[in-house]
């Protein structure tokens, strides 16, 4: 058991925590923006898949790694637009439409990948983002290795948390977004267009989700393969609830989650005789437990999942 505890003090574990947390941070921030505006986006799993594919493909076709991320965001926004059209002006069930979007976006990603990429025995690879040591800061013992020797997208994710938190709390746009998720009628009565706000929130949120997928293929791994998102999108949806729809808490949630994941990965090598599947189940079980723990206390945006129709109450 001492061995297990020793793992917790290694810098490599904590460095891995940030790496594992990065796609979750993107996903949970994206989902949070959508939900704060009142739209549940269950398309997340598919949007992340599409982001992973497009991000990778852009680089595979000779694009810059950053261009890959940009294209992934664009692809995410396009699919987000589709989800927004179905759920906002048309007011369809956000549950069913979101699942439909996930099925569609994943299927399309796989189809296009097979169409455009020759796959041999092994999936083709690209040169992914390399860790970038922040000058000076990375020389700090332990902390430097953990915090300041990550791949660039991880830094982007961390900055984005602060940016989204600030936007929501401190800008007129953030207020309008939050109000739309609480009471779209109030927004309309003040002369703003809640439909437009929701559509943009879903598009922007979906773009950020797609970054989470793109991180997988351009930083964490170097290739794309089907079902690589592995339910991370669903975990993000659970994390949003766990975080009570707050960006700061979302970061904490994603990190806790990643800590658990990184820890169990290392435990697998230390603890013998326990089937690996039990370790792999842990993240999903943990998500469900997290949901149960906060379910009653969570202050849900009041208009979440309620389609808005003008003049209808």
């Amino acid at each position, binding site marked *: 058991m001492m061995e297990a505890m020793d793992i917790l003090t290694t810098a490599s574990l904590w460095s891995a925590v940030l790496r594992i947390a990065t796609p979750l941070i993107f996903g949970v921030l994206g989902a949070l923006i959508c939900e704060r505006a009142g739209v549940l986006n269950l398309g997340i799993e598919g949007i992340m898949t599409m982001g992973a594919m497009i991000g990778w493909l852009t680089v595979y076709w000779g694009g810059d790694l950053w261009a890959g991320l940009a294209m992934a965001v664009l692809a995410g926004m396009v699919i987000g637009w589709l989800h927004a059209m179905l759920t906002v002006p048309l007011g369809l069930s956000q549950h069913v439409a979101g699942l439909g979007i996930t099925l569609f976006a994943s299927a399309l990603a796989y189809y296009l990948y097979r169409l455009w990429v020759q796959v041999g025995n092994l999936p083709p690879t690209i040169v992914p983002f390399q860790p970038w040591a922040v000058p000076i800061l990375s020389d700090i013992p332990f902390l430097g290795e953990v915090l300041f020797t990550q791949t660039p997208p991880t830094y982007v994710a961390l900055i984005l948390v602060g940016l989204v938190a600030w936007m929501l709390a*401190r*800008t*007129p*746009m953030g*207020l*309008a977004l*939050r*109000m739309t998720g*609480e*009471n779209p*009628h*109030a*927004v*309309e*009565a*003040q*002369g*703003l267009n809640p439909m437009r706000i929701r559509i943009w929130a879903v598009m922007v949120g979906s773009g950020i989700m797609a970054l989470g997928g793109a991180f997988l293929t351009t930083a964490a791994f170097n290739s794309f393969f089907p079902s690589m998102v592995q339910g991370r999108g669903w975990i993000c949806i659970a994390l949003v609830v766990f975080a009570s729809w707050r960006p700061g808490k979302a970061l904490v949630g994603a990190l806790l989650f990643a800590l658990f994941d990184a820890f169990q990965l290392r435990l697998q090598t230390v603890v013998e005789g326990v089937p690996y599947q039990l370790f792999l189940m842990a993240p999903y079980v943990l998500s469900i437990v997290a949901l149960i723990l906060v379910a009653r206390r969570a*202050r849900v*945006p*009041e208009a979440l999942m309620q389609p808005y129709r*003008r*003049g209808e*109450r």
Partner: protein
Amino acid sequence: MTVGDVLELDGITKRFGALVANDDVTLSLKKGEVLALLGENGAGKTTLMNILFGHYAADAGEVRVLGKPLPSAKPRAAIAAGVGMVHQHFTLAGNLTVLENIVIGSESLWKVGMDREGAERKIRALSAQFGLPVDPAARIGDLSVGERQRVEILKALYREARILILDEPTAVLARPEAEQLFTILRGMAKGGLSIIFISHKLHEVMGASDRVVVLRAGKVVAERVTAETTAAELAELMVGRAVARPKRAAHEAGAPVVVAEGLSVTKGGGMALDRVRFEVRAGEILGIVGVSGNGQAMLGRALSGLARPDAGTITFDGRDISRITPRQAVKLGIGRVPEDRQAQGVVGDLAVWENAVLERLRDFSRFGFVRRRAAEAHAAGLIGRFDIRGAAPATRTRLLSGGNMQKLILGRNLAAGPRFLLANQPTRGLDEGAIAGVHAELLMARAEGAAILLISEDLDEAVGLSDRLQAISKGRLSEPILAEDVDARRLGLMMAGVWETRDAV
């Protein structure tokens, strides 16, 4: 345009499907004037104001502010032109603060950062100027209904409204609060604002307005200077015909049927019902009056089998019913008319026959299969006996009018000859004709010996129907008084929570 008109509505027409909600409505508002828009529920008042504010687009007609036409269906344009609206159902976000609710929409969405201090100063200044005290940092969800209304008014003032529209502003206020509101509105009018308030309450219109426009079935039927008209004349103009509500006949009450003792229910940490005590006797109507949101809903839930009391008992013929389920209530012969007929009374997408037997599906089934023919026959019987218009057993229930839907709900309860009937806001939102019909049914049930608990926010209704009255305030019930002993002042005080209590410290 005559001199001094700040607002004109010209030939406004609005249709919803086959229904003409507004039919060629023309009216104007002068600077510094308080105009009352009087009409029954469904007369088209709210629709008209929603067109004025830009929530709806009119099918025909034009709105002009200071002579300039307003673009159709753009609240933003209405706000910019100086029109502010206080909705009947407040358009506030309960999880956000007063300040956030007021400033939203006032700054460009692309602005980086917000001027909270400036906004707070402006809100405090407006609060002081118009006598609308409120804490800008408070969360809306923690405020009382009266305070929320102040926030709604401040929202309009913050956007520099010169014309203020209030939709049924007193629906949620007690008499003293309502009087206070009208004093504030008068002060605003003196200060140069122009005000339209919507109401169906004659005493308010008589007391607070300079001029009255009466709307009936979507049309302007009369316009009067308030000082030159009488409540009686307005009543007749509003209803259009003399509809007499049925009168209660003298009648000897029998033994107590339902008795509640020390009944308390907590909800979300607060006390929804606090040591409530009442008894309803056979052949009597006990009226519970009070301002909306004082525990009526919970009282209704407790008596319907939907809420579990934390303390106290309710007995029905001596048997404790405080923990029964709705199904057991139906079986015992307890009839229940819910507060909100659309949300709780019927399943709109089911057929009339299905709603007619929903409470007693098991009586209309054999081996778990629904006896559809018997159920349809039963529904047809209800339709005939209770005069439910526009309905066949197979009609989708949501296609019925409010009044006919209510008759269906009353019918399915009364057909079984209940010993006890809970009637919670039985005429809310109905027109005069339908109200008279519902009242007649309730009085008939009383004559047949049913014990009836009537929960109502309509004082005329409660006083007219009830043998005895109790007021509900903050979850507490007053001692009963006889309907004969009622006077407006005493009832007003009771509803505000001022009464002699036996267990007062």
